[in-house]
Structure formats: C-alpha cells, structure tokens
C-alpha cells in the first residue's frame, strides 16, 4: 500500500492541483461574466514555460526552486490523500515544517535574483505566513490535543469511526477558524499580497521565467492542493463519507472511491475560497496581519481553551 502511494499520491496531487488552478481560473471568469480559459490552460502554460529559454542568476537561483518543488512533493507523501499515505514519520509536526520548505525554497531563489520586488514579496510572504500561522498552529494544536495524537493518518482514522471533526461540537470553532484563514494559506484575495502584480510585479517570481516559472507553477499547484487537503483531512474526515465506503472495506475500490470523495470535498472547499476571492480586493499586508490576528486567532484560541478544559 505504501509503495503504491509513494508513486500514486504525488501524481494525484499534481493533476488535482493543476486542475484546481484551471478550475479557479474558469470559475473566476464565470463570476466576471467571461467565458474563461479552457480548464487545462495551466498545463499549456507549464508546457510553454518549459519550452522557453530561461535566465539564471547563478546556481543558487536554480537550487532554491528545485528545493521548493521537491520538498513540496515530499510534503504530499506525508499527506493522506484518501486512504493513500506514503510516509507517516514525524506526524503533523514534520508536516508543518515541510510545509514551510516550499515557500522557503522560493524565498531563497527569489532573493538570489537580486530584485527588490522579489525581496518585498518574500518579506510579505513570510509576514503573511507568520500571521496565518498563529491561528493555524492553534487550530492544529487543538485538533492534536483533542485526538491526542500527532499523526495525520490517525486523525483521519479516528474521524472515520467517530464522525467528522467539523461536525463535533468541540472542534467546530477551529474548523471555522481554518476556513477563515484558508484564503490566506492559498494566497487568494483578499490575502493576495505576496504576488501582488500591480504593486510589486508579482513579487517573488518577478525574475522567474522559463523552467523556473514552470517549477513555480507546479509548486503553486501543489501548495493549493495541500492547503485544501489539510482542511479536508483534519476537519472533513478525509476519505470518509457517512459510511458510504463501509461495504467496500478492504478492496481496491474503497481506495479509489476514497480518493474520489476526497477530491470532491476538496473541490467544494475550493469553491468557498473562490467566491471569497471574487468579491474582495487585496488587503494591505498590515491589514491582513491585523485581520488574521483578530478573528481567526480569537476563535481558534477559544476553541483550544474549550478543548483543554473538556479534556
């Protein structure tokens, strides 16, 4: 099982991530009264980027982006996609750290480009990360404390037995907090401060072209996938769907349908993000930080206190 997951789950994540990128462009277009690009447009973009002759600002410029993409793929291995989960070592803590490495790689690469637009973008990226990390850590700690485990797989498995976390009264507040910070994790408006094209010329990727851009796009796709998948895994019970898969338990079909259910749930969550994305302008970075440190943090803090007190 693990061996299969090792090969299959990055593939699923990549395809689904690109699909989500395409879908988000299509849906945004429809909200804006447009027809929108074909849903496979991001794939064409990636192929185009690969076919272009990029520039490099030195070895480190290349190293950062490779590090970023490969660690994003490593991250996928730690994520239960449906019933697939290749690696479990380190649990959610290692997951959190690995989640950091993708942006960190891009930050290294962007800074090696010696472009202040990139540097400002990275500074915003880290500040935004710090801002949403506060409620996110509280949320994850609440979940880990509640289920008394640091393993993601176990969290999903417990939910399979005892119902979705989002449905249980103790974890509803963290769930809401996660939904509130989801646009920030995905880098969507109103938190699209990092690659603010009209302000700092698309920020960290200002100097990326050709294969560097292609790598970045893939990394971004994976990032979107991870951001949503984490929510689905932690709060919406991963592959579970009210015992629908119980009759199939143990067969290959359970795995396949599990993945399908998982992806459907992710699409649903993505839609919520897209509708928020469509009707809000960009925050200024300090406004974003103030917002994230106000409501989501408060809600998740209350959630954590409730969980600690009822423990």
């Amino acid at each position, binding site marked *: 099982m693990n061996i299969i997951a090792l090969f299959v789950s990055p593939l699923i994540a990549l395809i689904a991530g690109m699909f989500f990128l395409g879908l988000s*462009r299509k849906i945004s*277009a429809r909200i*804006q*009264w*447009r*027809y*929108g*690009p*074909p849903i*496979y*447009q991001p794939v*064409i*973009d990636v*192929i*185009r*980027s*690969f*076919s*272009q*002759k*990029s*520039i490099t600002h030195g070895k480190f410029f290349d190293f950062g982006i490779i590090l970023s993409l490969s660690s994003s793929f490593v991250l996928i291995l730690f994520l239960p996609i449906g019933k697939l989960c290749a690696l479990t070592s380190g649990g959610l803590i290692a997951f959190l750290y690995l989640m950091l490495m993708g942006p960190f790689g891009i930050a290294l690469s962007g800074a090696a480009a010696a472009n202040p637009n990139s540097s400002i973008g990275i500074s915003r990226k880290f500040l935004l990360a710090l801002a949403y990390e506060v409620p996110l850590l509280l949320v994850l700690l609440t979940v880990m404390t509640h289920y008394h485990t640091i393993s993601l797989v176990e969290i999903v498995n417990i939910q399979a037995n005892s119902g979705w976390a989002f449905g249980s009264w103790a974890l509803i507040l963290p769930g809401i907090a996660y939904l509130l910070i989801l646009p920030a994790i995905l880098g969507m408006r109103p938190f699209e401060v990092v690659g603010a*094209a009209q302000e700092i*010329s*698309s920020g960290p*990727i*200002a*100097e*990326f*072209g*050709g294969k560097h*851009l292609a790598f970045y796009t893939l990394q971004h796709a994976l990032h979107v996938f991870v951001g949503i998948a984490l929510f689905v895994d932690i709060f919406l019970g991963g592959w579970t769907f009210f015992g629908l898969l119980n009759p199939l338990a143990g067969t290959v079909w359970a795995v396949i349908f599990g993945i399908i259910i998982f992806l459907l749930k992710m699409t649903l969550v993505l839609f919520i993000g897209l509708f928020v994305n469509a009707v809000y302008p960009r925050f200024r970075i300090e406004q974003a930080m103030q917002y994230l440190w106000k409501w989501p943090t408060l809600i998740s803090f209350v959630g954590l206190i409730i969980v600690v007190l009822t423990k």
Partner: protein
Amino acid sequence: MDRNQIGKWLKNPGKMANKYSFHVVYFCTGCGIIEVPPSITTRWDAERFGIIPVATPRQANLFLITGYVSTKTLAAIIRTYEQMPEPKYTVAFGSCPINGGMYYDSYNTITSLDKYIPVDGYIAGCMPRPEAIFIGVTHLWKLIDMDKADGYKRYREDYVHYRANQEQILGELDWPPLFSKENL
C-alpha cells in the same frame, strides 16, 4: 481542443503551447493600450485563447507594442524585449510603429520599429479594434505554425546590426550586449 491538433501537440508540444498560451508583457507603449483592457475583460475575454497579461517580461512570450514609440520608450522597449525569454513574439499595433503614422514628422518618435527590434506582425489601424487584436493573434498562430514568427531568431542572428541601429538613435546604451560571442 481540436482533435486534429493532437498530432501537432505530440510532435512539437513547445510550439503548440507557445501558440495557445500567450503571456503578454503589459507595457502601455502608446495609445493602442486603450483597447487592451476591453479585449482582456468581459466583452472580448482574451483569456479563452490563453492570452493574459503578466507583470514582468521574464514570464512573457508576447510583446504587444501598442502604438507609437518615442525614443525614451524605445530604450525601455528594447530592455524589456531583451529580458523576455525565447521564443518570444512581437506584435506592433497601429500604423505608427510601421512608418511613423501620423507622427511621421515628430522629433521624438521613431518612424519604423523593425529597425530596432524584430517585429513578427503588425495590426494596422488607429486604433485597431479589439477584434483586430484577435485577428492579429490568430495570424500569429499561423505564422508560428509555419515557423515564420522568427523575430527572436533574427534578433539573435543580426544582433550586431540591431544593436548598431539602437545605438545610432539612443547613443551609448547603459546595458551590456545581450548576446556576447559565446552566447550566440
């Protein structure tokens, strides 16, 4: 996607992807830019053909020269063009870049653009309507298919001459040549 194109896709994915994913460098070089926002928004929606504006030339492969080019802009255009990764295409808008248009006697606008950077296609008119942009783009597709949109290759081959022309107008350029001997 057209089913007839699958063969082409398999044969040369890079070329096909370049055709269907024009990332336009957003540079209002002249008044023609006024028709770019309509063409990328609701009414004409260029994104259905994969055309979207991007922030920096590094990510782009299509350069729309939207109108007349003053000498001050010419420097910026050359710089931007040189920063675009290959393959890259240039489409000039309106009559001004062709021969100076109505500014044929202006002391600050150049008369024909293709003396300074290679231009792959022209969209005539002042201004060209948004439909004309799409016709221009479809024409560019044909040119790419026929491998005739080779401006970047010409630029590489004749870089010495292009550079000489640029320097004749702009004086000493404050950036080193794009193609040194080993780069060619």
